[in-house]
């Protein structure tokens, strides 16, 4: 029985080490939850910030949708809520929304159906399923049935599209086909000459698709920056009470530092406004 004892002693020593080593180097953990749309951005920002702080600060970022993040931070379940929409009636009290970046949503069609412009009412009629044939859409030379491509209801981009370009309306699905990701929706529009859809700027503004102007304003970075194009929205970090402590420092870092700006510039638009929007 001597040897198994020695084995046991080894096992206990290993277990003790495994528990105490991480505790000795314990990092403070900031928890975030919320918007799926801003998740790719937050993933990069938190990773960069943790490296810059020599891993003394760690992050736990979960998704769920803007409303979930807002409810979570209101209930004190997380330190920061991620939101892709501004404050709304019905949100928990005493929340502060700090914008961190801008993004925008474009209506897109297939390259072979290069519609230049759609008005708000045209967009509403198409996505609400009231107009179902391209012949009813001025500016299109097609006379085929419209294939409306949309996102599953949990998508933040869908929320932004409905709140801005659709003027608060809802995409009707069915008939619209709901895709589980922006990539799938992108390729559905790319492969189908009769398709129309909406995508965030990263997926929409490229040479694969035709990004449609809205009420005569082109869907472009320049127009989203000066806000003449209405289909933009902020990504917000939401805190309960004014930002403070480690979370506050992290939000300040996103809003003002050069490394954060660099990350934001890759696919989104950096801010100039750093004042909170009262909630």
């Amino acid at each position, binding site marked *: 029985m001597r040897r198994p004892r020695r084995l046991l002693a080894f096992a206990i020593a290993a277990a003790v080490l495994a528990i105490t080593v991480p505790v000795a180097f314990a990092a403070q953990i900031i928890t975030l939850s919320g918007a799926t749309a801003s998740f790719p951005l937050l993933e990069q920002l938190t990773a960069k910030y943790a490296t810059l702080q020599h891993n003394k600060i760690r992050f736990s970022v979960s998704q769920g949708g803007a409303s979930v993040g807002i409810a979570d931070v209101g209930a004190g379940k997380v330190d920061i809520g991620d939101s892709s929409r501004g404050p709304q009636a019905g949100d928990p009290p005493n929340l502060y929304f700090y914008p961190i970046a801008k993004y925008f949503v474009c209506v897109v069609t297939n390259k072979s159906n290069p519609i230049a412009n759609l008005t708000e009412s045209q967009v509403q009629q198409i996505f609400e399923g009231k107009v179902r044939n391209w012949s009813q859409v001025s500016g299109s030379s097609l006379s085929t049935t419209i294939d409306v491509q949309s996102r599953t209801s*949990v998508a933040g981009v869908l929320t932004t599209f409905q709140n801005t370009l659709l003027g608060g309306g809802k995409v009707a699905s069915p008939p619209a086909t709901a895709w589980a990701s922006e990539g799938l929706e992108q*390729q559905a529009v790319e492969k189908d000459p009769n398709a129309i859809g909406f995508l965030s700027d990263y997926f929409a503004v490229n040479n694969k698709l035709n990004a449609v102007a809205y009420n005569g304003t082109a869907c472009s970075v320049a127009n989203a920056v000066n806000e003449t194009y209405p289909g933009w929205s902020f990504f917000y970090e939401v805190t309960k009470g004014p930002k403070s402590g480690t979370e506050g420092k992290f939000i300040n870092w996103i809003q003002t530092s050069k490394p954060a700006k660099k990350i934001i510039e890759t696919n989104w638009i950096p801010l100039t406004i750093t004042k909170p929007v009262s909630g």
Partner: protein
Amino acid sequence: MLDRIRRPWSDRRAELVLGAAACLLAIGIVTMIVFVVRGAWPTFSHDGFSWLGSHGSVDSRIGAMQNTSANPAASAYQIGIWPLIYGTLLSAGLAVALALAVALAASIFIVDFAPPAVRRTMTPVIRLLAAVPSVLYGLIGVLLLVPFTNHLVTQQQKASVAYVIQLSGGGVAVVVLLLAVMITPIMTALITDALESVPRPWREGAIALGLNPLRATLAVSVRAIRPAIVGAVGLATARAIGEAIVVSMASGGASFSPNPTDGVVFWFEPFETAASTIVRNADGLSAPVLHSTLYAIAALLLFSSFMLSLAAYLVKLPLRRYQVSN
């Protein structure tokens, strides 16, 4: 220390180790059931079993569930997932029927008719196909078959249903075809194994009595392996019912109930299954109502897989007279 491990185990020790592994499996299954039912409990307690019925659009209900607060009202749990159950049964049923016909024909050919060289290549190739990950079939569907069927649908057909649903390629035909392609190899492998285990003299005796080779196979070999066929169908059905990725990529993305009386259009109509709904909406799991609803759908899938095993067992019982396999 090492040579102690290398030495053969005593009976008692082997019994303990193997028993522990078996217990672990049992504990794993029980834990999983408890976990899923616990997650689904709010839906059962607020909505009983009425969420299995059919009322309103599943898509819009799931959308609304996404935006409920932490303390939701009982009415927030209301949903009618019948279109998902129907979609699951429809796609799995048609795919298994198609796959069974092909698998049976292929196995009969491989075992009783193919030249030895063909048999030697076919058998490993089929086993290889059975191991192809399903996401690959999903990609083939979404990149190749969906755009192709979108060309097949005429503008008249699209216009005829335009205000209800959209026929844009993905739908019943594409999913059934992909599921059938996915499950045919595993069925063929199982049925081939069973046919090979039928004693040769049985079939040869039938031929000696004057049956032609195909009749002899059908009357003797296939009849003898009916339990194995039922087993293969059960396994394939379970895989088809649980398949989420292929369906979510190729089903047309709307929880509609395809109507067989629509004629040709039926094959292009979109639908969703229980499994694909879970995978498509998993992003919203932290919304409490949606969390519970998706778990309830998962509990339903778990229950249906138990029922499937039970049904396969009960069907096999009276067929076991010849005892050549399973």
